[in-house]
């Protein structure tokens, strides 16, 4: 009998049964999340199933953010925000306001997710929580609405694809480049119904904000979850966020002889910065193939790369310079605390001086409704996760996806630029400021 993957161990633990990939379980859910877009339908389901005496099974771990249409971009959005506020008020859920940040970032910063937690969110990027060693997955409103009442949900135990990266990442190559490469290799649906487990010495060396990038974009290859086995670095990070050091349960570590559906192995030194061309994340190519592509707008933000460390990389590249003529840059911090760090460290000033626009924390133009949407023919280079047709506005606009370093370098020239052409600070240079671990 071979060993078990993280998913098999974690779902065995949460269901109280000894299960393997392919089994169906009902498992105890630790944290539940929804937001201003998926919230209202979720609340309807919750109220439908709870009858006369509606009660949240775990209000302390029921989190609702207002981040997608924040601040409200229309009356309908504003009304939805009020529905969220009223629900949270009535049932005692943990509610975060306009400007507090993107759901996935808020849950991590506020310490809702601990290693080994089973987390569901009515948002497809709920895979993000695997960056701190949780099993995070996106679900529908019926799933979430019923779980708010019962605390458990059915799951099929997924098979696992393992991605191993050994060695040291070269200059200019970040977690974003790794995940774009993985997605390009297995394809847009290459991990459907499955978990992506990330490991190897290069992944172990990644700080948490970079591991979150790998987990966040697991969904772009169809993944049900994307997990990095939690370690001391994870515990350090969460202790710094919350003041409490979490335990690392044994069931979060895969067996050496775990039964993976496939193992993809990479040598870090051979990797280069990647760019996904329009209009699918799986169109990943080495940056040199698209160098020189004209860019109208640069977008720095989202639950993928809107953390302080990401924004700081861009700021370091453009510091003291102006954006290239005929380009605009929109920066949207992932949370209020990121916004605050930008103010405290002078990063805000760098952007304003360079001619960029800095918005309040939230999803921004990521899904194309406000705060910098694209018009016909516009070409955008974004630190985001999706570049489907029309994702950031017009069906006739185009979005390229890349790392913050590539976006920063490209801002100087107004065209896609190899980040290795400019002087880059690695995040190691400033984690000592206490903003990352």
């Amino acid at each position, binding site marked *: 009998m071979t060993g078990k993957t993280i998913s098999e161990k974690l779902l065995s633990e949460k269901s109280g049964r000894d299960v393997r990939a392919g089994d169906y379980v009902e498992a105890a859910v630790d944290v539940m999340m929804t937001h201003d877009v998926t919230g209202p339908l979720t609340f309807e389901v919750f109220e439908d199933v*709870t009858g006369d005496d509606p009660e949240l099974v775990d209000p302390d771990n029921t989190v609702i953010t207002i981040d997608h249409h924040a601040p409200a971009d229309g009356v309908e959005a504003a009304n939805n925000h009020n529905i969220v506020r009223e629900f949270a008020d009535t049932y005692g859920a943990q509610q975060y306001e306009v400007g507090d940040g993107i759901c996935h970032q808020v849950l991590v910063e506020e310490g809702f997710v601990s290693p080994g937690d089973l987390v569901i969110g009515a948002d497809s990027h709920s895979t993000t929580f695997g960056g701190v060693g949780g099993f995070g997955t996106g679900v529908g409103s019926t799933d979430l609405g019923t779980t708010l009442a019962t605390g458990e949900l059915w799951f099929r135990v997924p098979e696992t694809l393992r991605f191993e990266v050994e060695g040291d990442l070269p200059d200019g190559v970040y977690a974003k480049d790794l995940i774009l490469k993985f997605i390009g290799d297995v394809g847009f649906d290459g991990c459907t119904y499955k978990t992506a487990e990330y490991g190897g010495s290069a992944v172990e060396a990644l700080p948490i904000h970079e591991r979150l990038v790998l987990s966040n974009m697991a969904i772009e290859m169809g993944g049900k979850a994307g997990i990095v086995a939690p370690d001391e670095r994870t515990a350090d990070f969460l202790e710094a966020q919350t003041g409490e050091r979490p335990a690392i349960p044994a069931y979060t570590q895969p067996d050496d002889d775990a039964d993976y559906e496939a193992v993809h192995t990479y040598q870090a030194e051979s990797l280069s910065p990647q760019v996904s061309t329009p209009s699918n994340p799986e169109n990943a190519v080495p940056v040199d193939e698209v160098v020189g592509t004209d860019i109208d707008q640069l977008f720095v933000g989202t639950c993928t790369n809107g953390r302080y460390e990401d924004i700081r990389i861009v700021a370091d590249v453009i510091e003291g310079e102006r954006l290239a003529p005929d380009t605009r840059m929109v920066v949207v911090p992932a949370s209020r605390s990121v916004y605050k760090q930008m103010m405290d460290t002078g990063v805000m000033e760098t952007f304003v001086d360079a001619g960029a626009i800095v918005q309040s924390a939230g999803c921004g133009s990521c899904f194309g409704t406000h705060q910098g949407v694209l018009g016909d023919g516009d070409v955008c280079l974004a630190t985001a996760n999706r570049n489907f047709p029309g994702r950031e506005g017009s069906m006739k606009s185009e979005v390229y996806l890349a790392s913050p370093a590539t976006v920063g370098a490209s801002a100087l020239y107004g065209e896609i630029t190899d980040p290795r052409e400019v002087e880059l600070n690695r995040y190691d240079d400033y984690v000592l400021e206490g903003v990352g671990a």
Partner: protein
Amino acid sequence: MTDADAGRDIDTTEPGRAWTFGDDIDTDQIIPSRFLVSSDPAELGEHAFNDLRPEFAPNVADGDFVVGGHNFGSGSSREHAPISLLGAGIDGIVAQSFARIFFRNGINLGLPVLICPDADRIDDGDAISLRLDEGAVVNHTADERYDADPLPEFLQSLVDRGGLEPYTRAKLGTE
């Protein structure tokens, strides 16, 4: 026999008309975004496949089936898509493969979803029926029978009860 959200009995063993579609039918094609202002099954049903196949909604009858190719229901996690098909009167969906969240949503709503590698042998307009427990699709027009993946016991029990809402109500004693 199940009592689905749409408030009508579903019996997949009764033959119904097959409405066939190709690969990669995404949730936008099933129910375009502009109709998402409602979550009422009947109202959504009136707009199912509105742009892709305008003759679908006016002509579909209770007890008909939708047949898809690969990756049926891809795209956003909007639950309005399977709700609209239930509302239109569809008793089940057969496809060569489904996108993950659509499959989940179908089960949760009590809408039978069956994976059948031979779904492409079904022609539009054929009379078909589904044997969920055995895992089979019967094509009455062509007089053929195709193997399908039977639903795992747990999922079958969810569908039998009409989906996750009735299942949860039973659990909570709020029926």
